[in-house]
């Protein structure tokens, strides 16, 4: 059986445990598999297990990808003045976007995406245009030993505004790798919102990398929810290139059984007067592993930066573990930067309080979890999405 590096060639070597960025997330098992971008789907048509429309009740445009390939019949793309939204495969040669990020030069995962990328979304929002509904990119993995490499590009022009949801699901028997990349550049005073949900059955190694470039006074808000996933690595890199940017990025992860969830975030303040706020919360159940690495850079010119980072964890069961590393690298003096990180348990006093009022332990714990997650979920802009995320978390953990 051919190993992965024979099938997908690269100049960079796959990361090992010796690499600082990957020491808690080994991928040696994946490297011994034999994947293909042409694996046959288990189901004909879109799977019966998964609805093509992941968030019922949410009025949204939709772009559906199956194993990395665009499915026009299930998609509903916006057609509006000032909005260009199409699958990457239909972008004419002269129009193809110029990706600015250097991920493909830095990491093996990035290089694979660059070399083997398939379809994705190409989105341009013109000046002062606000798209009326969110765009949901639904990616389904359905097949054995599937490798998919979606790649998305977003440009929001001055004063524009758009909300994108990336939803990843997969069928129970599926296996393989998801290697997705999104690059967004946000022009002055524009606004971009991104929600990412990973709800994958099966055995998928999920790598996703979001690269956000913010110009003067732009706003970016992102939520990353890992509901289910065999092995998930979420990477987010935000570069603030102009004055007065605002970045909010929150996340929640509740791995269970043998799952592995890794969240790596980088907030790079290169310009002055920016603010950033980060909140990641996780509960590790079963014998799962959680990894958090948050980096905040404040470069020499980024005076008057105000950066805040918080990571809160609960290790719920024996056998579960969390490795967290919140980092600050600060090269400017007139700044306010803080991070906080905790690992603990459910508050026994709170649990006792609820139980003494006749609430069963299970229900009481569910209430506490809901409260724990509320800080992250409550800032999601759309009500329907918020409800759906809470619902699938609840179903997953049987509250």
């Amino acid at each position, binding site marked *: 059986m051919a190993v992965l590096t024979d099938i997908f060639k690269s100049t960079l070597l796959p990361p090992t445990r010796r690499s*600082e960025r990957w020491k808690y997330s080994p991928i040696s098992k994946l490297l011994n598999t034999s994947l293909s971008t042409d694996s046959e789907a288990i189901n004909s048509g879109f799977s019966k297990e998964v609805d093509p429309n992941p968030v019922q009740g949410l009025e949204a445009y939709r772009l559906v990808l199956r194993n990395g390939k665009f499915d026009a019949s299930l998609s509903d793309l916006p057609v509006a003045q000032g909005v260009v939204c199409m699958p990457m495969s239909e972008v004419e040669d002269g129009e193809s976007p110029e990706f600015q990020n250097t991920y493909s030069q830095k990491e093996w995962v990035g290089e694979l995406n660059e070399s083997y990328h398939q379809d994705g979304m190409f989105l341009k929002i013109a000046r002062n245009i606000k798209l009326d509904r969110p765009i949901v990119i639904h990616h389904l993995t359905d097949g054995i030993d599937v490798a998919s490499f979606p790649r998305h590009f977003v440009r929001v022009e001055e004063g524009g505004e758009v909300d994108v949801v990336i939803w990843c699901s997969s069928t129970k028997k599926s296996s393989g790798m998801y290697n997705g990349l999104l690059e967004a550049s946000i022009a002055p005073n524009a606004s971009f919102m991104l929600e990412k949900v990973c709800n994958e059955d099966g055995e998928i190694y999920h790598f996703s990398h979001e690269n956000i470039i913010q110009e003067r006074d732009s706003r970016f808000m992102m939520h990353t929810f890992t509901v289910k996933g065999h092995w998930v690595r979420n990477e987010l890199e935000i570069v603030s290139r102009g004055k007065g940017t605002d970045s909010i990025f929150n996340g929640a992860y509740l791995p269970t059984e043998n799952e592995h969830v890794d969240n790596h975030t980088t907030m790079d303040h290169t310009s002055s007067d920016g603010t950033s706020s980060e909140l990641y919360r996780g509960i590790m159940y079963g014998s799962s592993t959680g990894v958090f690495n948050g980096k905040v850079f404040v470069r*020499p010119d980024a*005076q008057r930066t105000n950066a805040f980072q918080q990571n809160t*964890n609960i*290790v*719920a*069961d*024996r*056998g*579960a*573990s*969390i*490795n*967290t*590393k*919140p*980092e*600050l*690298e*600060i*090269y*400017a*003096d*007139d*700044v*306010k*930067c*803080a*991070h*906080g*990180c*905790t*690992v*603990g*348990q459910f508050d026994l006093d709170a649990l006792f309080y609820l139980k003494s009022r006749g609430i069963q332990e299970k229900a009481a714990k569910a209430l506490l979890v809901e409260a724990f997650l509320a800080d992250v979920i409550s800032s999601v802009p759309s009500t329907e999405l918020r409800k759906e995320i809470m619902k699938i978390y609840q179903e997953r953990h049987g509250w």
Partner: protein
Amino acid sequence: MKGTEEENLLSEVTEKNYEYGFTTEIDSDTIAPGLNESVIRTISSKKNEPDWLLKWRLEAFAAWSKMEEPDWAHVAYDKPDLQSISFYSAPKPKKVLASLDEVDPELLKTMEKLGISLEEQKKLSGVAVDFVMDSVSVATSFKETLGEIGVIFCSLGEAIKEHPELVKKYLGTVVPQRDNYYAALNSAVFTDGSFCYIPKGVRCPMELSTYFRINQAGTGQFERTLIVADEGSYVSYLEGCTAPQRDENQLHAAVVEIISHDEAEVKYSTVQNWYPGDKNGKGGVFNFVTKRGICHRASKISWTQVETGSAVTWKYPSCILKGDDSIGEFFSVAVTNNKQQADTGTKMIHLGKRTRSTIISKGISSGESQNSYRGLVQIHPGAENARNFSVCDSLLMTDKCGAHTFPYIEVKNPTAQIEHEATTSKIGEDQIFYCQQRGIEEEEAIGLIVKGYAKDVLNKLPMEFAVEAQKLLTISLEGSVG
């Protein structure tokens, strides 16, 4: 104008010369530079060491030869050329030292400049000083007093001769020969250091103190300290250092091992003021130190450090909390100025049940320096109800310096409670304004704020050290912090 005032203050700091930059002229017995197996054999034979120790050194050397110098720390420097360093330098013994009169007058002068003349120490402070000039201990005081209660406090070389069974039992048990690049190097070539043994149930009546000095130009200093506190004992150990001004980089790769047996307590305090290099970052000491202690049941190790010197610091005093109910503490103030670089912090390894650890780290960066905190809190699966509390604050004095925080937290037990918080900021203008309003000059106000900022740590120092530490803090940041 405030702006120019600040500039004046800044230039005062940056032009500040190293106060302890003097060299003592003593005949030294130095071997040719370079490192190979025969150098290790020479060191061992010069010190009349037993065979087991030579074997131990050679094992370390073999391990070291296969290692690469680590580069993960957040520091940038030209790696020292180990082949140009002489690995042994001892002041020639003139006579066996029975009284102070026989001590080299040059040495006595040095000690006076440092403010620790033996007479004074003996008479007034009640501190026993094991004075290390370069690599060999030449004067030890209070030995008799300590001997009466069974405390052994001597140079490591002496301990190897007189208490070989103790040294053999404990040497390398906390920091093994092949632990890391610099620890392996130290294990292979260490020349001397201090040894301290506190017998069962003894509370050491005085603070044990060692002054280190790098003296010979071109001599690497490889100290090795071994502290053993037997069951139920207590000791407070002080280590302080200053180094003469030199233009070439000097390497200091020390190892400190602490064994704290059941219900024992060891308090280890350091004031580190090696030569930091001049304002352009020329010269200065490379301080690559491995310090680690192991705590048995219900015992405690407390590290307190005030770090103001060295061009490059790479130092993580750690605690292995092996026994149930053991406690580890780390209190640190690290000041960097000019082009200094410090990457320092701690490791708390929780293995036993109900183990607790506290980390308080205060970084102050000025000039164009880089100051990093790097720490690890690790809770192993068996460490029920372990508890850790960490605070890492950084204060930035100029717009060219950097302050960084790299805390690693690894938890494998569901009953652990870990809290970590870190903040980075400069001194608030409102704080200074408040002081000024009440008639306190700006410079004085900054000094006040910085001392208040570092108070949590300074308070943990023994009296004798607290005074010196405050002085050092002031000297290191004079101008910008009062």
